């Protein structure tokens, strides 16, 4: 007779405890050299527990099952020419931004968790980090596999990792990832697992992936939701590590609060790109950025921090500003991409009349008043043949590296928000109080920032002219510019038996 199956608690205990040991001929601090310098005090690593109690054997079993399901859908999507059933080919701009902006960040997270999977002193935490390292690698791989199908048919998808290291707007996610990776292990996990994954990642993987389904992109929906099932585990890990650190020693609280303040703001600024994907690049949009923000940050994040209040933890600094910006963010980001659309690796376009009406409805306080006029102006210029892209380089924020496009939303939404400081005699500029605070806490770190605009002027990016820089980015001439002038658009028209190119701004 088979032995009785152990229960989940017991299995977890057996498979995550007692697999480490006190070293004898090397000092523990030499074997684990990174987990003390940040000042986090841990007295008992055994108090660490994964609420999912996932063990390695169960992990492999479930991940294999998820992969099988995912690849079955990817195959059938390809076999059925799923690319022809999208709502519109302009939707691909979101996927182009995803593979160049998000996928390299997944890969960077894999590096970070592999490091933690070796360097945390507690075995339970190491096991959880090892699983997450494999998850993050899987996310990068499945995203590349899924999107490679689109690369056969559409432009701008050919070199995401090379471009991640160079392109002006991709330095936004890249610098966030490197900020976390170059910190100590406790700050890294607070940044990625808690600030990014628990507090904010729902905004990327839930409404956006639901939006992909709404636009006929089942392949992306499936990798998105498949990745998000891992993210649920990561979120839980993120919350667990925060509670664990807070319970271990009262001295940990101010350190953790500082990291949450910092990485909430850093991660939120990265999601500015996602706001434009959600509101503008999705052809049909089931939920606006503002609605998603209200549900997943204001309500859900509010509940989370209320719960953590018992440890003395507070909502991240400047969260009210992020909420105030929710009515402006996507419009400001999409405007800058439209103005600089000759220097993007995806196509830009003014919203269709129908989309503008949807934006008015979803943003009754802001869209018509502040943002509709600029899109209508550019649309008219394109109709008249007088439109030109802005042929200059914008001022960048020293911390988030986004062009300084954000405005004083609480007092005067048409006034750019300028913040600055001096450090060792040099001027530094920031888009917000959030980014300025981050700089002032660690100026030595951010004076090293590789700001794409400054690098171009220092002569490190292939040349002084825009075409030279784009060539250095490995942007092909057909990758950027207006969607309605693009190869993607012409191909889409051919697939759907339309010879006459549709007018700018028309719907499919």
């Amino acid at each position: 007779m088979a032995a009785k199956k152990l229960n989940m608690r017991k299995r977890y205990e057996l498979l995550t405890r007692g697999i480490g040991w006190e070293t004898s001929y090397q000092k523990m601090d030499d074997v684990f050299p990174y987990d003390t310098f940040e000042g986090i005090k841990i007295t008992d690593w055994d108090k660490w527990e994964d609420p999912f109690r996932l063990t390695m054997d169960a992990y492999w079993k479930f991940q294999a099952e998820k992969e099988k399901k995912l690849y079955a859908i990817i195959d059938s999507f390809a076999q059925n020419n799923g690319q022809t059933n999208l709502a519109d080919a302009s939707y691909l701009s979101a996927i182009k931004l995803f593979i160049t902006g998000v996928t390299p960040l997944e890969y960077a997270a894999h590096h970070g968790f592999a490091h933690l999977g070796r360097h945390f002193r507690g075995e339970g935490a190491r096991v959880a980090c090892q699983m997450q390292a494999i998850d993050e690698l899987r996310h990068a791989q499945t995203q590349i596999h899924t999107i490679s199908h689109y690369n056969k048919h559409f432009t701008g998808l050919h070199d995401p990792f090379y471009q991640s290291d160079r392109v002006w707007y991709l330095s936004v996610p890249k610098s966030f990832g490197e900020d976390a990776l170059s910190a100590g292990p406790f700050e890294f996990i607070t940044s990625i697992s808690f600030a990014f994954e628990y507090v904010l990642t729902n905004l990327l993987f839930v409404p956006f992936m639901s939006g992909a389904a709404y636009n006929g992109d089942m392949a992306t929906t499936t990798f998105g939701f498949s990745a998000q099932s891992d993210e649920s585990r990561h979120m839980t890990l993120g919350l667990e590590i925060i509670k664990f650190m807070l319970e271990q020693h009262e001295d940990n609280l101010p350190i953790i609060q500082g990291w949450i303040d910092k990485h909430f703001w850093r991660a939120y600024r990265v999601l500015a790109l996602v706001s434009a994907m959600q509101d503008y690049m999705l052809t049909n949009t089931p939920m606006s950025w503002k609605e998603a923000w209200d549900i997943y940050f204001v309500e859900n994040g509010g509940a989370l921090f209320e719960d953590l209040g018992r440890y003395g933890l507070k909502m991240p600094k400047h969260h009210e500003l992020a909420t105030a910006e929710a009515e402006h963010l996507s419009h400001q980001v999409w405007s800058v991409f439209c103005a600089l659309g000759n220097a993007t690796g995806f196509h830009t376009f003014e919203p269709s009349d129908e989309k503008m009406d949807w934006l008015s409805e979803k943003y009754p306080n802001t869209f018509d008043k502040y943002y509709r006029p600029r899109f209508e102006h550019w649309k008219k210029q394109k109709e008249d043949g007088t439109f030109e892209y802005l042929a200059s380089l914008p001022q960048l924020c020293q911390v988030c590296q986004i062009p300084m496009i954000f405005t004083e939303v609480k007092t005067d939404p048409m006034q750019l928000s300028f913040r600055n400081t001096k450090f060792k005699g040099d001027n530094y500029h920031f888009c917000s109080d959030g980014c300025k605070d981050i700089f002032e806490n660690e100026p030595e770190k951010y004076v090293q920032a590789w700001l794409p605009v400054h690098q171009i002027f220092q002569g490190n990016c292939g040349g002084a002219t825009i075409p030279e820089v784009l060539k250095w980015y490995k942007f092909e001439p057909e990758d950027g510019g207006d969607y309605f002038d693009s190869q993607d658009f012409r191909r889409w028209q051919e697939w759907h038996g339309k010879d006459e190119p549709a007018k700018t701004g028309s719907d499919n």
Partner: protein
Amino acid sequence: MAIVAKDGYIDFVRDKVENFHGNQLVLVSWDDHLLFCAAQAFPLPPEMPFAALVSEVIPSVFNWHDEFKDIDWAKTQWNLDGEAFSPDMDKSLAENGVEHKSLIRFKTPGLTGLNGTRI
């Protein structure tokens, strides 16, 4: 506040003025004209006369806007690094106090963007 690091921290400034080949970075913004989504960046020699900034550099980019041709430069209000200032057109950027990575903002009374929308 000093950075918390394991083995000290290197002293390295990536955007030192020496790295810009004799230029300094100057940031210019036109208030109430948000069609320019952000201030614009220019690498300029510090010895460039302020007049050249106005007659050559600024038009090269800001003439993108339909209202640019209507600017009355005599009435333009200037702001340097957060302080109102009156540039001496014949003097150089450096002599006018424009530093590496200084922000120059200008406001054009009467011109408030397309149809007064501040864009």
